[in-house]
């Protein structure tokens, strides 16, 4: 995904943060996913729609990781969410 690509929760998701953990429902696929603390932080951050670059910067600022690790982890996280229909790319 390119740094300027904007991602946000798919319009085909329902979600809620319960006791600090995001629970996300992919309504078309009819699957339910429970996020851990870090994934919940990222989900909350990207909820209004964020660029990949913004999400990487958020991870760098929030967690004790180097830039290379942040880019790799964010890339993998977003690819996973895309494959599960939980986020969509905003054109």
């Amino acid at each position, binding site marked *: 995904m390119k740094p300027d690509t904007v991602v946000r*929760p798919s319009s085909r*998701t*329902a*979600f809620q943060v319960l*006791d600090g953990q995001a629970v996300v429902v992919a*309504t078309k696929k009819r699957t*339910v996913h429970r996020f851990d603390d870090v994934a919940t932080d990222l989900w909350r951050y990207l909820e209004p729609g964020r660029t990949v670059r913004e999400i990487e910067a958020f991870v760098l600022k929030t967690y004790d990781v180097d830039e290379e690790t942040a880019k790799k982890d964010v890339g993998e996280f977003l690819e996973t969410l895309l494959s599960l229909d939980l986020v969509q790319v905003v054109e």
Partner: protein
Amino acid sequence: MIDRVKALLPNRRQGEIPIPRAAIVELTRRCNLACRHCYATPERGRRELSREEIVGLLDQLRDIGTLFLTFVGGDPTVNRDFVSIVRHASRARFAVQFFSNGLLIDDATAEALAAENLLHVGISIYGATPEIHDDLTRRRGSFEKTLRAVRRLKERGVHVVFKFIATNRNAHEAWAAVEMARRLEIPIRVDPTITARDDLNSDTIALRPSRDMHKRLLRDFQGPEWTPQEVDRAGNRDLSCGMAKTLVSVNAYGDVFPCVTLPIPAGNIRYAPFRTIWEESTLLRELRGFHRSSRLQGCPSCGLRAYCSRCPGNTYTETRNLYGPSPSACGEAVLWKELENESKGIVEEVPLPPGLADGHLPGWTPAELAHEAGCSVGLRWAADGA
């Protein structure tokens, strides 16, 4: 995957106020059918919630942590603001489903619903032919209209599920209805549970399928996925359920209930914020400790608990006693035990559950019970009492 949701949702520790993860919201008590078995009875003279009041409730539910939202009625589509309310819920990121007869779902409504983020739509179907379905709904032409609505929704990609309530007037068509659902590629749930009405009138009990039919329905439609449940003899957790904990219900007049099956109000959202009712209601607090109550009667010592699906709400409407045994659940537990025995080739007398102490189950005649007692498996007690 959706069925695994309980395992995926976090549970709060004992003593903490739970989150109502699922809410059932009645959009109207009015209906365009007059189904013989319906539990919902209109309350004359009471004003139903306006769109603004319902939207306000949804916002409060969202704020407190609700994720799964089910709209019911009457028929929810009879509410003139139905689509607008669904749109609000969908865009507030609830996982939305609704139960309907589909009569008011025309092309425009189906189009509008398909544009929203629906988890699924439960459509009531009571037969495989117009004669049987319309007999139960007491409206000629309803079968065809319902099927047209189903096609409209399905063509637009909405996930539809059939709900078939089996009574003594339509149960014989359950197998044909399942075949019809298979042809339409729509999942179907056959349910032989007929509850008393929510005004505690139990005239609906007479509509229950016969004992033999009930058993065949369980065997053919629920048997493949059924296993005995785990019994918690020390804590009685299996006698409880999600009412007042993970589940809440609000009716069309704003009354808040522990569950849609239990018609004891905990408060009204016109007079107090939802959160206040949820956190401070004496009734809801008591029900959260239901399984620990010393008022539980009969069930804790019952030998058929692993086979029982006792619903506290149905127990209350059936017997007016929340804490006692449920005759209908007791009867079904006997059937499950018999089915298990038959599948294993076991011949034994099934013990009498506490709710059948008089040997009679509402909806099953003494003659039926006596007939069944002639079988090689179980129910000798019925012959003794007949």
